[in-house]
């Protein structure tokens, strides 16, 4: 039987077990849409902007652990998708993006809606392909899914010219396995390195585990919990790692880094042995590298060799999957006698008493921290929470205590405003039985508002928690601290009536201006199981995110809310962003 390229492509997606495709049609992909239309096994989500398609597929992937799939047309279709691809790339999210291309004979002729998709996306994908012949379609799809989902995952783009989707050929069986001489995804950690790590860990008097997104992407949460309990070591998690270990557990010190807790950052600063597990010593974590962990030795576990000794030189590098390396450590440390760390814990308890997330309520205004605390209470800590980028993101990370992996979904690496809403939609599609909340702000939400329409079409009830302070809050905070309160272009003078806006999209809107109305509104919103509810919550416009390590500072330079005066640092420190 002969099939056309579009049919072969859709059949290949089916063979990969794809259940949802987030996309937007256009000239170059019309044949693919025609084939998709005839396929009952794949549900297509028609977004309202291609960026929403990539973020939607991303949220779907992060919530489910499966590979997200996006289909866009050539030219503006793929350029619109680029922000979402870069977002997935920075956070190592498995995604396959299929972009239409102008017909092969027109490539390079400046054809209508032509853009060099492979060239434009090269630096923000794990790999990309331009299909040149119909016979390459199936094998390329196989390779793309293999590359996207194995090793350190990431987005893979397949660019397919229109004429190739029209051409016909005899159908061949979809390849079951794939071998690539230039890509080996299975790395077995060196036993020798693990043995060395065991000795260092057993003798450490002030150890700390520093777990990142690699524990979640690598599905290592179970092993991480076992290892942490077994050793009795304190553990801190990065923004991307929250939920890998339960934040409500006593061994958890909370998040570390620029807006991390006092105990987490001080423990890093005072540690003699830092164990980085699936984390990459990002600048938001380390602050000033010269002041970073002055007395520590580093054990660095990561699947990507290029992360090791990139920012911080590892004393014991272990290249391998977090899950397998942790299991090996558990096996080898089972009957090891560990050094007594009770003094270390006493010191950590002293730091804990500082209560660095305490904040003062003031009458008449709703504190954004209170909103997150109440969201946690109303959802009993069980919701999937997505966020946009800015102050609200940090408050969500600090005050919603995530106990499970894949419960917290945010754009940590790229910091993409507009991510939260489409990601919530994707998460709800992946996990229809879970409550999904999108914590956002009046700046971020306006970047992807159009997806409210998609959410009505596909009935993906999400609760939007808009912390509305009228400002681009994080920008305002930096201007207050570092630019002598010159609030350049960070105030939004004209905001829409978000309640009416939600209603015009067919959703429910509730405005909350008083703290006493907050809890009833949240309860009402989550009782509306079938509807998307937009909670527009007016919050204190002057509130800042604390603790904070100022640019150029180290972990012991933290500033605490109401206790330290924020002072502008030396101008040279402004290199930090």
């Amino acid at each position: 039987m002969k099939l056309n390229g579009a049919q072969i492509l859709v059949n290949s997606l089916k063979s990969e077990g794809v259940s949802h495709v987030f996309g937007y049609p256009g000239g170059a992909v019309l044949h693919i849409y025609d084939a998709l239309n005839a396929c009952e096994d794949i549900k297509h989500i028609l977004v309202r902007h291609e960026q929403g398609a990539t973020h939607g597929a991303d949220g779907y992937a992060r919530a489910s652990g499966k590979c997200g799939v996006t289909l866009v047309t050539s030219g503006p279709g793929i350029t619109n998708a680029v922000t979402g691809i870069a977002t997935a790339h920075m956070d190592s999210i498995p995604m396959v993006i299929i972009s239409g291309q102008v017909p092969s004979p027109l490539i390079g002729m400046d054809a209508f809606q032509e853009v060099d998709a492979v060239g434009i996306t090269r630096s923000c994908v794990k790999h990309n392909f331009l299909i040149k012949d119909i016979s390459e379609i199936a094998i390329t799809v196989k390779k793309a899914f293999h590359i996207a989902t194995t090793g350190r995952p990431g987005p893979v783009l397949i660019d397919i010219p229109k004429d190739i989707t029209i051409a016909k050929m005899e159908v061949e069986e979809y390849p079951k396995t794939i071998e690539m001489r230039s890509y080996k995804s299975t790395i077995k950690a060196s036993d020798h390195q693990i043995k060395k790590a065991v000795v260092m860990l057993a003798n450490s008097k002030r150890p700390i585990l520093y777990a990142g997104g690699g524990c979640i992407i690598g599905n290592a949460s179970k092993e991480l919990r076992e290892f942490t309990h077994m050793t009795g070591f304190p553990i801190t998690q990065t923004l991307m790692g929250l939920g890998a270990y339960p934040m409500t557990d006593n061994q958890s010190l909370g998040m570390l880094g620029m807006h991390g807790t006092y105990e987490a950052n001080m423990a890093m600063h005072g540690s003699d042995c830092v164990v980085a597990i699936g984390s990459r010593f990002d600048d938001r974590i380390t602050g000033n590298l010269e002041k970073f962990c002055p007395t520590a030795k580093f054990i660095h576990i990561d699947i990507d060799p290029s992360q090791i000794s990139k920012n911080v030189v590892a004393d014991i590098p272990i290249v391998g999957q977090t899950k397998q390396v942790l299991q090996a450590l558990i096996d080898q440390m089972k009957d090891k006698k560990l050094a007594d760390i009770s003094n270390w814990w006493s010191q950590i308890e002293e730091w804990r008493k500082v209560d660095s997330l305490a904040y003062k309520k003031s009458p008449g205004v709703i504190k954004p921290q209170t909103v997150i605390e109440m969201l946690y209470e109303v959802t009993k800590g069980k919701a999937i929470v997505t966020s946009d980028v800015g102050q609200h993101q940090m408050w969500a990370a600090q005050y919603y205590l995530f106990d499970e992996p894949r419960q917290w979904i945010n754009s940590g690496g790229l910091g993409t405003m507009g991510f939260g809403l489409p990601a919530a939609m994707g998460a709800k599609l992946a996990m229809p039985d879970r409550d999904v909340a999108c914590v956002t702000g009046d700046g971020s939400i306006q970047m992807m508002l159009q997806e409210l329409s998609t959410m009505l079409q596909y009935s993906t009830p999400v609760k939007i928690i808009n912390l509305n302070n009228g400002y681009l809050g994080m920008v305002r905070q930096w201007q207050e601290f570092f630019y002598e309160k010159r609030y350049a272009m960070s105030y939004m003078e004209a905001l829409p009536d978000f309640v009416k806006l939600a209603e015009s999209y067919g959703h429910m809107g509730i405005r909350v201006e008083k703290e006493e109305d907050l809890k009833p509104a949240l309860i009402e919103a989550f009782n509306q199981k079938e509807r998307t509810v937009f909670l527009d919550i007016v919050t204190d416009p002057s509130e800042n995110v604390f603790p904070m390590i100022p640019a150029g500072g180290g972990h012991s330079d933290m500033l605490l809310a109401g206790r330290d005066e924020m002072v502008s640092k030396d101008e040279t420190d402004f290199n930090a962003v």
Partner: protein
Amino acid sequence: MRHIISVILENEAGALSRVAGLFSARGFNIESLTVAATTDSTLSRMTIVSVGDDGIIEQIVKQLDKLIDVVKVVDLTATEHIERELLLAKISISSDTQADVEAKLDQFNAKIIDAAEEAYIVELAGKSQKIKDFLSAFNAEQIIEVSRTGVTGVCQKI
């Protein structure tokens, strides 16, 4: 320090731009880059000369290795190796200078591959330092044009 990095990669369209893009995106320095097919027509060998401290070179090697099209990366500088570069140069001659130019060509074992009345085109293969020494043996006005291939190299171990 100067390093010669040898890369075996899939002979695919776009593989070169992946490598070049990696260097520009991460701010790595390229002193020279040569690429051509190997005896296996599905593979190319690329030889890159870069300058950086040990940490940077380590990152270059790891980042290259991470590219899906790259099959193998070797830092030749870390092993016993042979490096060569080819120079083609147009050198002007006159009745006054011809004898002197020819003496210098002899001294460096450079070969005349085209002789015209006013100029020789010469070829010289050798380490980059030898090429530099050769060029500095002439006055600037004697050298009309220079074309260098950049360094290529192989590991000496069989």
